[in-house]
């Protein structure tokens, strides 16, 4: 059985407490909302695109340590990435957290600390929420993203 400390690693607690890029972005070129209707976790993700490149990423909102840390780590990982790289990260992250494919962790850098979430089925949606919102923003969807 996985332990709580596998889930609440120091890096996650740190990002949950002091999220990076936690701010609105008045000059965003794309934004999307992420909403978990079951628990009420709610985020806005902001992107400023420079052509194909993500020049800046930020987010705002409310949620648990897992959802906030995941959004914070995502924002740091995506800055400067191309649209295709962001898509690739989204897919790898999804495979690691939702499908429990631990081998994806190698290519995910700091995001690998979220690997343990896969063993806590009730928390998988927390970790994926901001990612779904980012994905919607990238694709210009106007509906709020949910993890349902």
């Amino acid at each position: 059985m996985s332990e709580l400390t596998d889930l609440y690693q120091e890096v996650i607690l740190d990002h949950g407490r002091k999220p990076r890029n936690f701010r609105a972005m008045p000059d965003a070129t794309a934004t999307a909302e992420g909403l978990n209707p079951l628990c009420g976790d709610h985020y806005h993700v902001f992107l400023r695109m420079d052509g194909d490149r993500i020049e800046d990423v930020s987010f705002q909102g409310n949620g648990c340590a897992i959802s906030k840390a995941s959004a914070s780590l995502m924002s740091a990982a995506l800055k400067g990435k191309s649209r295709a790289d962001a898509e690739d990260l989204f897919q790898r992250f999804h495979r690691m957290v939702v499908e429990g494919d631990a081998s994806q962790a190698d290519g995910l850098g700091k995001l690998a600390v979220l690997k343990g979430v896969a063993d806590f089925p009730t928390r998988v949606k927390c970790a994926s929420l901001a990612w779904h919102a980012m994905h919607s923003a990238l694709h210009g969807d106007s509906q709020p993203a949910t993890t349902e």
Partner: protein
Amino acid sequence: MSFDVEAVRRQFPVLSQRPYGKRLAFLDSGATTQKPQAVIDAVSRFYAQDNSNVHRGVYDLAERATAAFEGARKKIARYIGADPREVIFTRGTTEGVNLVAQTYGRTHVGPGDEILLTGMEHHSNIVPWQMLAAEKGARLVVVPVDDRGEVHLADFERLIGPRTRMVAVTQVSNALGTVNPVKEIVRIAHARGVPVLVDGAQAMPHMKVDVRDLDADFYVFSGHKMFGPTGIGVLHGKAKILEAMPPWQGGGDMILSVSFEGTRFNTIPYRFEAGTPDAAGAVGLGAAVDWLEGLDREGAEAHERDLLAYATGRLQEIPGLRIIGTAPGKVAVISFVLTGVHPHDVGTILDREGVAVRAGHHCAQPLMERFGVPATVRASFALYNTREDVDQLVRGLHRVREMFP
């Protein structure tokens, strides 16, 4: 007869399991209560011995199924002080509110009219009225909730106006445990000729309810929150009002005769029970009522009050814990927040300690907004809980504080 909690606990098979090797402290009875063996047996006995469709067959088995189903209706009616014709089986509280909104509401609410709710309603007592208001061009008026989580009768006096067509209020708040003075609210509304729907979902597991004494026009509740099965609930309505209401869903059992030229509808309560009902569920709910009647209710209520006082006291040990909802006389429900930790994280850590609580908005988002929190942790007690459950909760919360200092 005295209340023996250990003897009660032994009747609930679920409570003996050990999640993660720990004793189970089930503190989420506000979401659904566990079921005593007597209820489980009644449902299983119905399917094993009496099952057939009710109100249809001429054979012995069908007669027994019908007798069991109608027997449950009579039992529930007697328990709440109603006439069996006033007891309509539904899927639960939500369906009961929707039924009233879609029948009584659609015929009595028009453009510019008002429906009065309180700020502590569950989504199921908000959304059906909101849908009706949107359809009719009516509006919702909301009685405010104070800092302790209470509503004030003076606000009802002030807000029930000439356009008010319905007052819909919960008897007990699912998120805070507040017990509302529904009898007085009914009196105030009736003095102005306005009917009242009372959501009794959270009251039924904690107190004996007499619908005649309460005098509400509609009283709705769910079986699964009062030790009965899921999928069954009751809408109690005054016979005179039900008889004047148009049917809701059409189908079998709700008709007297059908032709393509027109249909004659059945009498109450059947007019509102289209299709094959959840007969086993009704029988199970009847068994839950029998089970409750076999208990020392006063003893059970005293036991729950003791748990509430003990838990409220012990929670003060946890640094940064704030209880939301401190109304005097509330039932054993404690909503709280911890500085620096989201309720979800609290829920996951408590789970690993064998403690089951609800973390979230409790289907009462407007109320959460009122208190300026996105979510709370809720420990909701039932008569089978013990001080040991409280101690386990407190131990778990210390563990939360270790991880989130």
